[in-house]
């Protein structure tokens, strides 16, 4: 027995469909993937907020701005 239901390739290919492992768990995989996607946005937004706060509070100096503007 294998994770994808195939033990050998001694088969007629017209009888073969899906060949990925753990068939039957597709809905669970989708739920996990969607959750990961939403968590990614939440983490990213928090990180971005922190970065912006850092730049606002610690680096707002005239010479830094002029340096950035002069580089064009």
């Amino acid at each position, binding site marked *: 027995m294998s994770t994808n239901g195939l033990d050998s390739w001694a088969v007629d290919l017209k009888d073969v469909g899906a060949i990925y492992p753990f068939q039957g768990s*597709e*809905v669970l995989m989708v739920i996990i993937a969607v959750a990961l*996607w939403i968590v990614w946005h939440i983490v*990213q*937004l928090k990180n971005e907020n922190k970065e912006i706060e850092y730049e606002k509070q610690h680096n707002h100096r005239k010479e830094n701005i002029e340096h*950035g503007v002069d*580089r064009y």
Partner: protein
Amino acid sequence: MDGNLNALTTVFTEFYYWVTVVFMFLIHVGFCMYEVGASRRRNHLHTLMKNTMLIPLVTITFFFFGWWIYWAFPNGPFIYEGLGINWDAGEANLPWSETMSTNLGDRITGVFWAAFLLFSWTAASIVSGAVIERIRSGAFWIHAVLIGSVFWIIDAAWGWHYDGWMVKLLGYHDAYASGVIHAIAGGYALGVLVVLGPRLGKFAADGTPRDIPPHNVWMVTIGLFMIYTGFWGFYAACNVPIISPELIGGQITGEVWTATNIYLAPTTLGAITFNFLMSLSGGLLMAYVVSKGDAFWTYSGGLAGVITASAGNDLYHPIQAMIVGGIGTWCVYKLHFIVERKFKIDDAVGAVAVHGYAGFIGLVICGFLLWGAPASPFEGYATISPWGQLAGAIIMFGVLGFLPAFIVSKIMAAMGMLRVPEEVELLGLDFSTEEAYENAIADVQAAEKSMA
């Protein structure tokens, strides 16, 4: 796959779409180069990552729900024949379906899905260029998912599907996506820009617009050349490469196999090759003259020419394609500056004009040039008309493009998550990253010198 001819056709079609995907990848490379070239040095990394990260975000969401929308929504929801959701067609394209996977019984779904997905990236990438140097990445990526995996694919289901209600009722014809990609993305970009506002310094105190030149014109031009190259894949992906009348199942008689557009109406790869190049040429020639040789606008004009003619490039004569491309490009150039001056819209790369206005105008012109021609090989469909095309253009640019972008941007702005603060915009969006980079260099140099 029973029978050698059937097997060969299936494998050819599989490979055909796969090649279009590889070509279309170049569109994204081009957009990245173009945007980074147009941005200023203190915003490079932010600009690059903003566009790059839309790739995974749109890809996974297009897998989760975008592809299902295309197959389930041609008549809805609540537009044509009751609820209008085709559950049966949608079922095979749900993310947990066996056909959306490694499956020896289905060789087409993956490559067909990917071809549409690359269109999704393009739609989101068009918006990306317009909003550079002041939008928050997190806000943009939510917009990218909305345009790339929701709104454009709804419009594709409605107007770029052989069974779409716009094709049936309006005779909507948009063979190479003037509206379904370009008008909607341009409209969406405009909806974001209205709320986002211009970059600091874009307008003088009296409202006069200032030019903010690209920091690297070469990157911009090479990026646009890349987009031209990728556009070949885009055009090819809009066709079904070969299909029999029997398989189409419409009104076509006889046994001659043919290439078709997305509506399964016949065309040829030769026709679209002629028309792509002639409309590109019409756009370049017009843009060079009207912009007085400005490189940025000449290259953009080439794109605008193709985009304007795209709606009807399956049927136009090459000279018609050239003239349509030229007319569209003239309108695009003039409109960009009128809108900039009058409404204070800072579209950093001219995306609203090159994609949005060109797409809109192209749809309307197509309605006149192909007036009365069949929009579909199936019985009972409306024929192509100016009013059907105008209604389609309004739906694409306004209803599915501008409106949702404006509403979502308003919500984001109210939550304070749309735009970076003024002091950070002045400082440069890459400040933290560059500071860490310079500190790391100083650190390692000091360490190495101490060993000398």
